């Protein structure tokens, strides 16, 4: 049995989760504070990867990041490097797919903080950013942490978008879900059993922890 897929999955998911935690927290703060026309449209757009089939999300990412893509094209011209079929592509796929979960949980947590607390801090002279740091974050951290855990769970289970964007290259982009598919397809059942058991155990642990911190989302 090879430990490659497990280690790769952990590396990819941890990186993706770190990105998602930072970006998702900023997005959640922005959305919780913003009042503008079309807010609900923006929210829906951000949540789209949650309901789209992952292969569709992956397809969009290929269009965007491919050698001739909107972003990928410029990047290739400047650096000669393309993200497709690299382990970094797996990070991007996992991040994009788990981003909505993080935003949703964090936004719910931030919005559930009593507005009087925020007003009170404002009247005591604190800027929005200071109030966010000293009052909102400490009061909303449980929901935010739950969001980070769920994002990680979603990232480590990512299959469809990863396959589209990173392919399934043994030793390079075969994260656990992809390795399970490959093992089962080639009849390597002992490897498949083991990977399935590990992924299940990990997911159960993370889900339990996330539920412990969040009563509102799950």
């Amino acid at each position: 049995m090879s430990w490659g897929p497990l280690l790769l999955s952990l590396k990819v998911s941890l990186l993706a989760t770190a990105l998602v935690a930072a970006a998702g927290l900023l997005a959640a703060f922005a959305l919780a504070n913003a009042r503008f026309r079309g807010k609900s449209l923006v929210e829906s757009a951000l949540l789209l990867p949650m309901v789209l089939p992952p292969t569709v999300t992956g397809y969009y990412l290929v269009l965007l990041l491919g050698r001739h893509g909107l972003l990928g094209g410029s990047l290739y011209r400047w650096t000669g490097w393309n993200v497709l079929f690299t382990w970094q592509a797996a990070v991007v796929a996992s991040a994009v797919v788990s981003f909505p979960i993080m935003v949703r949980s964090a936004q719910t947590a931030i919005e559930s903080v009593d507005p009087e607390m925020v007003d009170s801090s404002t009247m005591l002279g604190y800027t929005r950013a200071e109030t966010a740091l000293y009052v909102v974050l400490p009061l909303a951290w449980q929901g935010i942490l739950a969001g980070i855990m769920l994002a990680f769970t979603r990232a480590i289970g990512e299959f469809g978008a990863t396959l589209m964007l990173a392919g399934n290259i043994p030793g390079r982009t075969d994260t656990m879900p992809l390795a399970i598919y490959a093992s089962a397809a080639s009849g390597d059942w002992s490897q498949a059993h083991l990977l399935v058991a590990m992924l299940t155990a990990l997911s159960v642990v993370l889900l339990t922890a996330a539920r412990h911190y969040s009563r509102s989302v799950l």
Partner: protein
Amino acid sequence: MSAALEVRLQHALPGFDLDAALSLGREIGVLFGPSGAGKSLMLRLIAGLMRPREGEVRLNGRILSGTAWVPPQERRIGYVFQHHALFPHMSVLENVVYGARGLPREKALAEARRLIQEFRLEGLEARRPKSISGGQKQRVAFARALIAKPELLLLDEPFSALDGPTRVHMRDCLARLMRSLGIPVLLVTHDLAEARSLAERMFVLIGGRVLQHGRPEEIVQEPASEAVRELTRAG
């Protein structure tokens, strides 16, 4: 002497229209009216938590809203909220110190300790808000609002979260304190007894309009309109 606080505000919310003015010296003013009269809205507009559609707020000659706009953080207004809004993740001492933004830590701690003593909260410094009584919470909220030496104190139904006996006791204690502050204090209430016992100047707000103002006894004895008579009828 011109008034310390001069307010003239117009604001519209769906189904509600506020058009009210008041001026207040260094005294306790009570904004009295039924629920839905626009009392809390008026406090929020004075504080700068909301932008009025039109009008002016002037505090000690400085324009806060109107031709200029001073953000709420820079208005030097102390605000005590209806449910006290103490930060549950901070101790009593930390809550009070939080109000002393910009003061060096040592100074802030000394000042907080002084206020904690003045408000008879000694021994509770390390306690969290959820483990102290309603009356104590309120005193913490006052200490936190006063530590930065505001030029105006706004109180939104400050006694409504307290039960009967505590309420009367707190009212008497804080009335003495508020009179000694030497700054304008504007308090919102829908409780006539509270308004009468605290107000040096009373403003009767009904349906977004100040229908009458003056000393509370004058208003009760000589209501200017049927609506005010109805609202100030004792008992």
